[in-house]
Structures are given as structure tokens and as C-alpha cells.
């Protein structure tokens, strides 16, 4: 399980680094509202990843379910919040949510090509 915990830790760290960098860049290039929308999405993505991680840790421990509406519901709540709030934007929130995928890709590439 040490491999798994190391992978989780690396991905969390990568998400935080990418999100912080993107927040600053978006804040300067667009506006604070856009950057906050991105940050909200990134936070939601992190929470989503944590829920996925919990359910994967539960595999093989009795009757824990892998699926369920909670993770996808989290995304739906996040997007509806961004749409309805008026001050937040849809696209930055969605891209923020996708930060976790970017972190996974970065980690996979790092694993493939070794630490440089």
C-alpha cells in the first residue's frame, strides 16, 4: 500500500502546485472573478479525487460501493453554483475541475520518463 499512498500524495501535491500557478496566471491575465472560478473548480476536483480515493480504498472491505451519485453530484452542484451565482464563470470552473486530470497526466508522464 506504500506505492498507493505515495501516488496519492504526489497527485495531491501536483494539483495544488498546478492550481496555485494557474490561479496566479489567470488572475493576472483575466480577472479575479475568473481566477476564483478556477480555484472553486480546482477545489471541487480535489474533493472529487478524495472521494474517489476513499471508495478505491474501500474495495475488498465488505460491502462498500464503488459507484454512487455523490462524486458526479458534487460536479453537478459545483457547475450549477457557478452558473447560478452570476459572478462565477462556467468554463474556468470546469477547467479548474479538470486540473486533477492534468495532474494525473503529469504524474503518469513523470513515471514513464522518470524523474527529471
Amino acid at each position, binding site marked *: *500500500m506504500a506505492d*498507493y499512498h505515495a501516488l496519492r500524495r504526489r497527485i495531491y501535491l501536483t494539483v495544488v502546485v498546478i492550481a496555485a500557478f494557474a490561479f496566479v496566471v489567470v488572475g493576472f491575465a483575466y480577472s479575479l472573478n475568473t481566477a476564483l472560478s478556477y480555484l472553486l473548480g480546482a477545489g471541487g476536483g480535489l474533493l472529487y479525487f478524495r472521494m*474517489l480515493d476513499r471508495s478505491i480504498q474501500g*474495495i475488498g472491505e465488505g460491502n462498500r460501493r464503488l459507484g454512487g451519485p455523490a462524486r458526479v453530484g458534487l460536479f453537478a452542484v459545483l457547475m450549477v453554483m457557478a452558473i447560478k451565482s452570476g459572478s462565477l464563470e462556467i468554463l474556468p470552473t*470546469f477547467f479548474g475541475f479538470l486540473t486533477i486530470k492534468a495532474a494525473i497526466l503529469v504524474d503518469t508522464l513523470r513515471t514513464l520518463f522518470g524523474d527529471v
Partner: protein
Amino acid sequence: MNDITAAASVIAAALAVGLAAIGPGIGQGNAASKAAEGIARQPEAEGKIRGTLLLSLAFMESLTIYGLLVSIVLLFANPFRG
């Protein structure tokens, strides 16, 4: 938004999220069952198997999320609203 656009949007939203959930649902079920099987066969490789499952499930579920995004946009921020 006129009635036909509203009705078409609701049907399209339902189809988008419903159809987008079929493939990943089957894929996630297969992946999880094979991972549980692998962990039972080789408990010493548990960390690696769970790690691979985490990454593959994250990407599989993103397909459902794309469908959900389309349906949310159709329902709450419809670009075809008159």
C-alpha cells in the same frame, strides 16, 4: 425559450447524461472487478493495483462528467434560448 426548444433541451440533457453513463459504468465495473481479483491473487501488489485503478477510474469517470456538463449547460445556460 419557446416550448419546443425547452422540450428538446430537456430530452437532449437526459440523453446526454444517460448515454454518457453507460460506457464508463460498464468500464468501471470491469476495472474494479479485475482489480479486486488481482488483489486477491497477489496481495503483495495491492498498492500498485489500487494506484492503477485510481488513475483509470478518474479518467473513465471524466467521460460521464463531460455528458453531465453538456446536460447542465442545456438545462441552466442554454445557448439556444430565444
